[in-house]
């Protein structure tokens, strides 16, 4: 098999600092060039970050390759380089064939234009020929399920309709190489399932696909091989299940505690600073291994440097395969939420009590989130800590078999003879 993509020693450097507001004004540029003239000092090294460096890999024609990694590991930068949105700083990549990139759905959608007009515009932006769009128009409309509103400006669409239409156009792109970033993370569950189905069709049509996602079950369903990126480098390239296991358990302590160091840069989360996340067993000890038959607690400790109104902190619980078990917030009780509308500056611990006989055996991943509903998300870490649930002694464990399912509650059973 020949290669569709060949990447050699690719690197991308960004200059940070010096541009605190995100863009430069003429005055800054004049001032810094004057400074350079008088001192001849190059940009200090701390202002330079390599988002990606020494990346080499190849993708065979027809292969579906997954790319996973934490936020900031360089996934998006890699896709941007391969789709030619931005130029690399060093190295090279060779791509054989037409590339279609889906870094976002609905790129170029104009709110004033109708659904029909946006299909044409968006299709052209994504690289489809006009004839191609015309021929697929009905298919796209059917997939999006918005036929009734196709001549309505999309600014009148609900967000769900908008996303469906946007994805429908993107899904009918037919380049030889498809580069996809996290586009499945939108819309409701039903639509996500549909998107995933469409993506797996694409993957099985013999097209070369690079697929970035945080959704481990999507990665496992669509790809056979996966690259794990860490701090701008390739940490591992392996069959997907190995890569996912590596990724999910990587950088996680096995002590039942995860601490965020004060030296890390939390300027983006300010005034919220995470301190630690702990799993505590029924005897009050930090624990990596919890008996399914025992209750346990999860503590999230954090500091507020200013008071925050309507803050809620919460937990995501997922399996190491990425299946979400539950989401819970410390303000889920409406009365309590009324009572503590504002949290003043200081250190806090939000503690969640898990009852006995809740989870099935296996390795679980805890994520944390601190946000104000629909206003601002201060801090999110979806893979903050892992722990193991030991099913010993849980209901039915006298049969030494692995039970399927995420939860293993003690349910009441009775049986009697059915009255005829």
């Amino acid at each position, binding site marked *: 098999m020949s290669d569709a993509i060949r990447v050699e020693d690719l690197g991308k450097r960004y200059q940070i600092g010096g541009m605190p507001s995100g863009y430069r004004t003429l005055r800054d540029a004049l001032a810094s060039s004057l400074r350079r003239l008088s001192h001849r000092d190059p940009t200090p090294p701390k202002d330079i970050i390599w988002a990606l460096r020494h990346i080499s890999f190849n993708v065979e024609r027809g292969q579906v390759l997954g790319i996973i990694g934490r936020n900031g590991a360089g996934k998006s930068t890699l896709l941007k380089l391969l789709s030619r949105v931005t130029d690399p700083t060093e190295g090279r990549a060779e791509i054989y064939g037409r590339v279609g990139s889906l870094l976002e759905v609905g790129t170029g959608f104009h709110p004033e234009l109708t659904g029909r*007009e946006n299909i044409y515009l968006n299709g052209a932006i994504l690289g489809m020929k006009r004839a191609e769009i015309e021929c697929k128009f009905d298919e796209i409309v059917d997939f999006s399920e918005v036929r009734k509103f196709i001549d309505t400006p999309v600014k009148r669409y609900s967000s769900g309709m908008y996303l469906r239409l946007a994805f429908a156009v993107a899904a009918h792109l037919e380049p030889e190489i498809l580069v996809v970033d996290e586009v499945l993370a939108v819309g409701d569950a039903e639509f996500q399932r549909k998107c995933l189905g469409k993506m797996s069709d694409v993957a099985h049509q013999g097209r070369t696909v690079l697929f970035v996602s945080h959704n481990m079950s999507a990665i496992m369903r669509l790809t056979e091989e996966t690259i794990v990126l860490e701090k701008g480098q390739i940490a591992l390239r392996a069959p997907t299940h190995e890569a996912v296991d590596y990724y999910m358990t990587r950088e996680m302590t096995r002590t039942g505690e995860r601490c965020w160091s004060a030296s890390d840069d939390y300027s983006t989360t300010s005034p919220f600073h995470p301190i630690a996340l702990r799993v505590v067993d029924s005897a009050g000890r930090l624990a990596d291994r919890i008996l399914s038959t025992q209750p346990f607690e999860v503590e999230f400790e954090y500091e507020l440097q200013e008071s925050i109104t309507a803050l809620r902190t919460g937990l995501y619980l997922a399996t190491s395969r990425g299946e979400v078990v539950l989401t819970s917030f410390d303000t889920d009780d409406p009365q309590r939420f009324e009572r503590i509308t504002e949290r003043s500056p200081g250190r806090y611990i939000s503690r969640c009590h898990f009852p006995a006989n809740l989870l099935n055996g296996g390795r679980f991943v805890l994520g944390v989130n601190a946000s104000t509903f629909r206003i601002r998300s201060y801090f999110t870490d979806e893979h903050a800590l892992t722990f193991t649930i030991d099913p010993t002694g849980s209901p039915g464990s006298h049969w030494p078999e692995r039970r399927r399912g995420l939860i293993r509650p003690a349910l009441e059973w009775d049986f009697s003879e059915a009255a005829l």
Partner: protein
Amino acid sequence: MDQTKQSLEKQEIDKLTVIRPSRGWAWIDLRELWRYRELIYFLVWRDIKVRYKQTLLGAAWAILKPFLSMVIFTVIFSGLAKLDTDGAPPPVFYFSGLLPWVLFQDGVAKAGNSLVTGSSLITKVYFPRIAIPLASVMAGTVDFILAFLVLIGMMIYYGVRPMQAIWTLPLFLLLALVTALGVGLWLSALNVQYRDVGYVTPFLLQAWMYASPVVYSATLIPEGWARIAYGLNPMAGVVQGFRWAILGVGEPPSGLIIISILMAIFLLISGMLYFKRMERTFADVV
């Protein structure tokens, strides 16, 4: 036949794209731009469609804008200041000067902002970036055509007969577009880095209008070196030539127009070079 078609398709599949750091000056890839002509068409079409959406008067604004300016100019510069209009009826004189000027002014203003407003495109999809300012400039021609119909009506009303030289009109139109694109490329690329451009542009355009014979006749400028220096502003040649082509007033632009053409080409080429050089950082900086 079939075989050639197949091998063509194969070529398309095997088409190699090499991604590597670009350095220094480079030329805009016109062949690639041509391949993206459908996208340019759709961008122009979008700009036209969207321009007067959710306005009460809609496309009438394309006519009203120059028309109202014409009324003001007629009252102030002809009525009060008694400026000479080369013997043409003042409303026709001002309106015919305003048409190419508004085409240029709108083109520059829209193109200058186009990359910043289109930043979501730039950071998500690849295509030749020049398509965006190019489409902004081209979209203005529809407004121009609408206003031109009004000019024809005015000429009939005032009994102004078009001259033989009317065939040169497309040339002046093209010259206005080239100049607008050249300036638009400079401003749009600068705007990505320096948002100061957004504040400078209105003043620049205002000053530029008074440096062009929109409200007065270029015959006011003394012959000789002064006239040649005046031609360094390509819009001087455009506006004067435009009037000459349809009204036959003023003088046939000779020396003036050649300098204007050279200057317009210089603006376009330097704009393209600068744009191409800055292009690779757009997605990171915008």
